[in-house]
């Protein structure tokens, strides 16, 4: 028994010592580091996955003697455990992480992410990214939009209208350039018994359509009020009132199927891929997949009449404060910003943040990037409707399911989504 006790005490002391030593990790000079632990959650065949595989190769060539320990993680795995992961000595030296107040903002406010401001200036990342792209990179006490750099995005995304060219031709519909033309086009489809707009009420597309409609009446001031809490937002006034009322009107007129409340985004995507619906309003993340899976003639256009569009930078490269190879991590980020890697993203159906359209060989890909550059250039990235407060995504889903089902009026939905927003903002801005 005594021997058992001695062993237990020794094991406990050893464990505590190891923990204490590990807790010291990340301090001091890391210029001699010869390992870079890198985690991200992009699939191997996605535009970003392909580009970052190449970036890792370049990094290895330029850093002989440095071992890159890459681990591909699941999005949810990082989303739910990032705080614990990077607060431990077992975390990576550089990691892809979700942009926004509830994620990168939260960790930055707890001192868990490295301040990258000096590197961003020195290496020119601040010049490569437009102001609206920098919004997600900077956080001030956890709130995005200003303050220090805690992450670097190197791809972008935005919401657009995808359309089936063959169905447009078949029904004599031309590509709309204003919202009025868009409704006229949808009226044509409805008159011929075709539901014009694919939808999924159980996930993000409904909220994004509502936001696109609201943005048709919005400007940067509204976006800053709504997303960055610059001023209180009145949900009973335009643009949000217009967004909810128009959404309900579109359901009533049959532009959106009334039985789409339980559908997932995947259902909407596959419905478009199979040619069942003429249009969907969704993000550039579908682009690569549509290119490879759609057999008919399709294209995209920006949501007609809008100067503001749902969209943002992609997720961020962050460097945990516990990283033992910070300088190597900065080198890696720098490589991903190079024209070669940016072009690789663009040529595989992604949206590079510092991409030169001339370097993109495919016409469709070039148009995707040109549209993004147009939006980004006019400061038109308005982020996403669920960003302002944690858990708001499900609030919006629930609200717009009510509109699709026609079980709730636009006013009731606006009330239902206003309170969690106001409570959440009060919570975030209280500290």
């Amino acid at each position: 028994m005594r021997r058992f006790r001695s062993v237990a005490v020794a094991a406990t002391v050893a464990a505590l010592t190891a923990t204490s030593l590990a807790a010291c990790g990340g301090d001091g000079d890391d210029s001699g580091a010869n390992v870079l632990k890198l985690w991200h959650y992009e699939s191997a065949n996605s535009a970003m996955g392909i580009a970052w595989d190449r970036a890792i190769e370049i990094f290895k060539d330029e850093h002989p003697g440095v071992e890159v320990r890459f681990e591909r993680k699941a999005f949810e795995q990082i989303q739910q455990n990032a705080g614990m992961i990077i607060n431990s000595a077992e975390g990576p030296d550089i990691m892809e992480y979700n942009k926004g107040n509830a994620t990168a903002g939260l960790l930055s406010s707890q001192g868990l992410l490295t301040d990258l401001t000096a590197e961003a200036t020195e290496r020119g990342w601040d010049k490569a990214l437009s102001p609206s792209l920098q919004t997600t990179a900077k956080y001030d006490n956890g709130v995005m939009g200003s303050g220090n750099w805690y992450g670097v995005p190197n791809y972008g995304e935005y919401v657009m209208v995808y359309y089936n060219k063959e169905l447009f031709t078949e029904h004599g519909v031309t590509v709309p350039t204003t919202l009025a033309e868009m409704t006229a086009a949808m009226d044509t489809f409805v008159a011929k018994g075709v539901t014009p707009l694919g939808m999924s009420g159980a996930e993000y597309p409904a909220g994004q359509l509502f936001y696109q409609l609201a943005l048709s009446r919005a400007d940067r001031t509204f976006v800053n009020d709504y997303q960055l809490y610059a001023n209180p937002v009145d949900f009973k006034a335009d643009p949000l009132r217009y967004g909810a009322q128009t959404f309900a009107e579109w359901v009533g007129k049959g532009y959106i199927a009334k039985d789409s409340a339980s559908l997932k985004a995947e259902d909407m995507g596959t419905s478009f891929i199979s040619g069942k619906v003429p249009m969907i309003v969704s993000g550039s993340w579908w682009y690569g997949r549509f290119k490879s899976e759609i057999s008919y003639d399709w294209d995209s256009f920006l949501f007609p009449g809008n100067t503001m569009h749902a969209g943002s930078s992609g997720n961020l490269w962050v460097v945990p404060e516990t990283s033992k190879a910070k300088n190597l991590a900065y080198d890696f980020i720098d490589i991903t910003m190079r024209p070669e890697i940016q072009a690789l993203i663009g040529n595989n159906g992604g949206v590079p943040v510092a991409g030169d359209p001339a370097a993109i060989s495919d016409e469709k890909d070039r148009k995707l990037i040109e549209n993004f550059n147009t939006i980004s250039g006019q400061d038109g990235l308005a982020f996403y409707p669920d960003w302002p407060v944690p858990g708001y995504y499900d609030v919006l889903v629930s609200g717009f399911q009510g509109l699709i089902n026609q079980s709730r009026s636009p006013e009731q939905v606006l009330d239902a989504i206003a309170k969690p927003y106001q409570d959440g903002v009060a919570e975030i801005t209280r500290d």
Partner: protein
Amino acid sequence: MAVPDTVAARPGATPSPPTGRTPRRPRRPDAGYWLYLLPGAALFLLVIGGPLVYTGYLSLTKWSGVGDPSFIGLDNYRTLLTDDVFWTSFTNTIAMIVAMVVLPTLIGLVLAAVLFDTIGRRFRPRTAAALRAAFYLPQVLPVVVAGIVWGWILRPDGALNGLLDAIGLGTLSHDWLGDPDTALPMVMAVMIWVQLGYPVVVFMAALERVNPELYEAAEIDGAGWWRRFRAITLPQIRPETFVVGLTCTIAAMKVFGPIYALTRGGPENATNVPSYFAYFTFFKRLNVGYGSAISMVLTLIIVVVAVLFIRAQNRAERRDGGI
């Protein structure tokens, strides 16, 4: 299963010879026995006791999951009292108890009795066993898989609507899981399908130990199936009924997987339940303190229900023992 109150003397125990002295109080169990309890106790503390105490502490804090929790006393519990979603989730728990306990137990009782008393006698026992296995099959499927499959069936373009179209009832087609009026009844129907096999198997096993002479005697006396079911089957398998009732009630109160797979608590919170609400609050809203408070209330209610069940079972057994 039932333990009689009057426990017989241990086999081999012999009465102590009279000593003429005042009888000593029964000896406390040997201290050595405690050693055998240690692994279980340590595991309990590690897996249940510790996390429970920590969750209780977190429920008194405001915490986003990183940094230090700040102590706010009973604020989370006060907020819970006026939280409509919390009350909706508990109202839905009653529906889950109906779907996972009441109906499967009632239907399971009748099915087990029919399989045992009628099918098992008139056909080969193998027929009853095959049917029993068929009823039990949904229990073998991972619940998330069952949820996804039922999600396909109930989609707007799913098999159920396809079937309705095929038999000329296309006007009844519906977005079954997307409409707040039909989502909860559909989830309940799926849960009845999932749960039914469990009571059937338990009750059939219970019926195996019932003395067949009781049934034969009852039949000779002219008792019909219903009379035999009420007078013999029900009283004989009462202990198993309590076990099924208790375990299924606990399962219904903490149901999570099917809700996650089928509806994520929607539409419009129509199928939200406390476990999903706690998960959502904890991981999605990053309100760890509030999520912990929901979990603590749920745990407390489950413990109270479990104690009430066990007491009722003990009372019934005492009553039976006294007959």
